[in-house]
């Protein structure tokens, strides 16, 4: 019994309760609620699709005008690259590569597959092909938006977003950009932690930070474990799935050399994943003289 006795008060409340007739639950009570909670498909779907279509049209419009500007403006970017290319090539050849750096380069070469349509043999050709690739990229990007539905929010018409869908989105994005996921296996004994790293190109066409932010915005800030923090340099996002007992962490960072390192970690709620693996992997990528610095 609660601390306050107040016998008169308790007695009065008991008598009131005895006199009181309990309300009856109407027969249609449950049906009404289930009808109210039924997803309303028609109108929201139409508006959603119209908004998506308008967004795609705006993107195409902006992309086209930008391409036209680049083509008509007397920008000498490719030529400038060509002129400076021999000097760069000389620099690359002159730099002494240590054995360790070479080892790391070999490991990372298998990790990071860049989407280069031409496989140039000379460093000079590499620079030229990259310069032309930047002009072609927006067209490819627009086509991909239409063919592959990267914007996962349009997939399902529910208010609840499954946190695992961020991983699905990242996997699709990586697949399209030919970026391989590297499994970071720090906690060997703990199979409940799944950690992956991706190295994306930090390009305007891909605009990874903007895409990640867009994904984060589809989650209600009341979602359990919701924590979003970002700057120009870093992106940090966490969520929890209390029903599956999982927590998620996504961390992206501009690591220089025109690259963004993205880490995705999923673990059970009570586990604290070790950051050591990520740090090691990051250090490997930022070693001076690394071939990946030179390639991009």
């Amino acid at each position, binding site marked *: *019994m*609660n601390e*306050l*006795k*107040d*016998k*008169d*008060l*308790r*007695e*009065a*409340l*008991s*008598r*009131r*309760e005895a006199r009181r007739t*309990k*309300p009856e*639950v*109407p027969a249609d*009570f*449950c049906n*009404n*609620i*289930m009808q*109210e*909670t*039924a*997803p309303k498909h028609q109108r929201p779907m139409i508006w959603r699709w119209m908004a998506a279509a308008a967004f795609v049209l705006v993107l195409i419009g902006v992309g086209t005008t930008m391409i036209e500007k680049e083509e008509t403006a007397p920008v000498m970017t490719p030529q400038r690259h060509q002129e400076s290319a021999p000097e760069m090539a000389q620099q690359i050849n002159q730099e002494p590569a240590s054995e360790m750096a070479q080892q790391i380069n070999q490991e990372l070469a298998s990790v990071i597959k860049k989407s280069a349509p031409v496989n140039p043999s000379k460093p000079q050709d590499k620079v030229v092909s990259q310069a032309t690739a930047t002009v072609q990229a927006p067209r490819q990007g627009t086509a991909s938006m239409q063919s592959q539905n990267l914007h996962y929010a349009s997939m399902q018409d*529910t*208010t*609840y977003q499954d946190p695992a869908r961020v991983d699905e989105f990242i996997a699709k994005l990586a697949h399209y950009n030919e970026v391989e996921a590297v499994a970071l296996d720090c906690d060997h004994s703990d199979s409940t932690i799944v950690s992956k790293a991706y190295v994306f190109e930090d390009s305007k066409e891909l605009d990874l930070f903007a895409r990640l932010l867009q994904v984060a915005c589809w989650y*209600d800030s*009341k*979602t*359990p474990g919701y924590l979003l923090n970002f700057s120009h340099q870093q992106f940090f996002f966490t969520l929890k799935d*209390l*029903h*599956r007992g999982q927590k998620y962490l996504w961390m992206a960072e501009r690591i220089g050399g025109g690259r963004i390192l993205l880490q995705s970690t999923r673990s059970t709620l009570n586990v604290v994943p070790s950051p050591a693996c990520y740090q090691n992997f990051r250090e490997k990528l930022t070693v001076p003289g690394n071939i990946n610095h030179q390639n991009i």
Partner: protein
Amino acid sequence: MSEIISIDVRTQSERQRIGRILDGKREEYAWFVNTYSQQVLDFTSRMIPDAEDAREVAQDAFVKAFRSLASFEFHSSFCTWVCRIAYNESLNRLRRQQRHFVDIADIPAEELDEELSTGREERITLMEEAIDDLPPDERMLLHLYYYEDRPLREIAYIMDAETNALATRLHRIRKKLLQMIKQKENE
């Protein structure tokens, strides 16, 4: 002990059901409505005198709970959580109603304890009348504390208030009740 275990098992099964609802099995929610509708309706009808309004508020509380199911963090049972929503909904509905103000005199705690535990028949009858005159939220606080014997921290969760503030409020309501009874005695 067995009660604690049965509550724990029920919470586990509720957790699983909610998981399935969030995975798209919306029809599972009917189980929650059927299990707790009587309790929630009983709760809202204490706050709202009109039966139709009370039914609507209970219904709204269930709908609101369904829409916020993903944010439910199991700090309480599902039923307590819906009662919390129902309480806020009821207050919103009653917002326009006028409150009954009573001038509260300063009464020492010991005197108050004695005055509210006389055991006299006429006092209990007057107390019943005084309770009827209280605003619904104050009546609900008395009901949860004295009749249902819920701990203050649980009532604080339902009423979305601090435990200390609630204790102070309870003390004020007791003083107010005594004042109202004394007024009735003098009439």
